[in-house]
């Protein structure tokens, strides 16, 4: 079966005063129909830029897709003009943004903000679009939907706004929904509700979900497959079980070890580990592995040669020199 979305060698760079910032520097991501894929990594690793590149939502200039293909149902989106992409935006690929507080237009009613894409893509009349919007609001469990569609964003709480965003992203029943840290800005209790809702919607509509997050807990709960990104590169990719059971890349191991555990009794409690250092600045990066300066296993080769992504088990790929020659396994 042909994958729904196939990102091949994508490079998205930003022109800055100090030089070219390689935010996304040659990544491959594949997403099948109906699959939930999580993209994880710390802030500044290029997760959001990757997602935004798919629909060309990055600011261009200064941003530019310098290389690569983004195949959606076999069609390359990179060479398309913004006007041609408009037929795919919201219709085939829905987008949920990180900040529900700022992602809705304050001067338009929430109903109108959902209805306008229905009118554009489904050719509905004002009345029908509004009716469908009310339906969507009920689906995402916004109470009193008939009245609420006429309200403005400032009359909603953060969680409710994110429900509006979900209704907006799902209104045209897209084949793929990209959710860019949909729960980061919300309270923990609301986070769980929103994730459940996303899961529900996914089951109901059978769409694929690309969930971008930095919370490993969210990954464990929702993902089928996981892509770990570091400094604009994919460092490891695996299905969720093998990633948590046998993480192979030192960065992934660090990420998993930095999850607070409440299931261990006090005798086994250890100090929570952190990955020392911070993400490198991606202007003229040094050759070699980008994680090497923070890696506890780093050795001579790491600073010289960039490790390629290689398959180490069926469906499990990672980019690290360890285990390649010396037989050292992390």
């Amino acid at each position, binding site marked *: 079966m042909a994958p729904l979305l196939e990102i091949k060698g994508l490079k998205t760079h930003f022109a800055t005063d100090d030089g070219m910032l390689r935010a996304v520097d040659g990544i491959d991501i594949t997403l099948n129909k109906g699959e939930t894929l999580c993209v994880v990594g710390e802030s500044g690793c290029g997760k959001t830029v990757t997602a*935004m590149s798919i*629909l060309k*939502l990055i*600011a261009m200039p200064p941003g530019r897709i310098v290389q690569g293909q983004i195949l959606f149902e076999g069609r390359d989106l990179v060479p398309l003009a*913004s*006007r041609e*992409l*408009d*037929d*795919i*935006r*919201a*219709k085939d690929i*829905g*987008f949920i*943004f990180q*900040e529900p507080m*700022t*992602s*809705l*237009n*304050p*001067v*338009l*009613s929430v109903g109108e*903000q959902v209805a*306008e*894409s229905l009118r*554009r*893509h489904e050719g509905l009349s004002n009345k029908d679009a509004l009716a469908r919007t009310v339906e969507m609001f009920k689906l995402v469990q916004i109470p009193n939907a008939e009245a609420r569609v006429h309200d*403005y964003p*400032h009359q909603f709480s953060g969680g409710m706004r994110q429900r509006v*965003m979900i209704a*907006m992203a799902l209104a045209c029943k897209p084949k793929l929904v990209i959710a860019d840290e949909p729960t980061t800005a919300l309270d923990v209790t609301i986070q769980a509700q929103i994730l459940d809702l996303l899961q529900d919607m996914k089951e109901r509509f059978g769409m694929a979900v690309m969930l971008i997050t930095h919370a490993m807990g969210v990954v464990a709960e929702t993902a089928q497959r996981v892509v770990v990104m570091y400094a604009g590169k994919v460092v490891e990719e695996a299905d969720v079980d093998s990633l948590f059971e046998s993480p192979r890349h030192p960065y992934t191991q660090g990420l998993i070890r930095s999850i607070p555990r409440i299931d261990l009794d006090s005798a086994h409690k250890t100090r929570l580990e952190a990955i020392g250092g911070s993400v490198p600045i991606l202007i003229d990066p040094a050759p070699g592995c980008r994680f090497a300066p923070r890696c506890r296993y780093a050795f001579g080769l790491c600073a010289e040669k960039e490790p390629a992504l290689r398959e180490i088990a069926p469906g499990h790929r990672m980019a690290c020199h360890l285990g390649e020659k010396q037989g050292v396994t992390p």
Partner: protein
Amino acid sequence: MRQYILRRLLIAVPSLLGISVVLYTVLALAPGDPFAELATNPNVPPEVALALRAKFGLDDPVYLRYFRWLAAMVQGDWGFSFVSRMNVDTLILQRLPTTLYVIGSAQLLALAIAIPVGVYAATRPYSIFDQIANTLAFIGFSLPTFFTGLLFILIFSVTLDWLPFVYSTDVKGTGIRWLFEQIRQAIMPVMVLGLFQAASMTRFVRSAMLDVIRLDYVTTARAKGIGQARVIVKHAMRNAMIPVVTLIALQMPAVFGGAIVTEQIFRIPGIGSLLISSILSNDTPVVMAVTFVFACLVVLFNLIADVLYGWLDPRISFR
């Protein structure tokens, strides 16, 4: 909404009273009054002049004179112009339409230029269009209206002889011909005032748009595939217009001030040139009334701006 406007109008009453006190006091402190000429006229015996002053109450204390003026004003008696030999209200009503016509058209012209140019420039920052618009705007608001006014007269009236440079009150002709002449003679003052306003407004619209265009909800709108034009007009522009409305409302006094100068240059028989001539001839009742009318207009435009806010921004409620 209706209640809000009513309350705003009621709030305007004390501020207008305050303005009138200040205006009256300043005018009372200024040297000269309508009878100053009588005192220096050798044909009028001093005791007659004194009797006249006493009769009109000019030697009473300022506050008494103010209350007398206020009482008369409230009853619709705006006083009598000693220079024009007619009632002040008739005089103002004669002059006001011309001023409103010229200023109104100039503002409309300014908006018609500033909004599209500013918005387009903001969607393509640092493009050639943006650079040209910025340069022209910079030149536009660096040149004072009294200079551009004279320049326009020199080019379009003296050299090219396309447009009349003296505004006439009694335009000859009727019907279409009359209308045509009215428009023709207003072109230069409207252009001078309008372009000056448009220059600063364009820069403001551009920066307001630039602020809005990189906000998250504009990206959300773009992700909906509704097209660039709709994203700009429906999502970005409406938000960017909120600060622009403030600017236009705050600029209103400056617009009237600029109109005074422009009316002088083009000899427009408007309320501004009436103010200048009555100040020069010590026609205090007219000066008082005209400045008061300006104050009322400024208060009115601020009220309009506040109502517009509520319409543009649902977060502002009329309570």
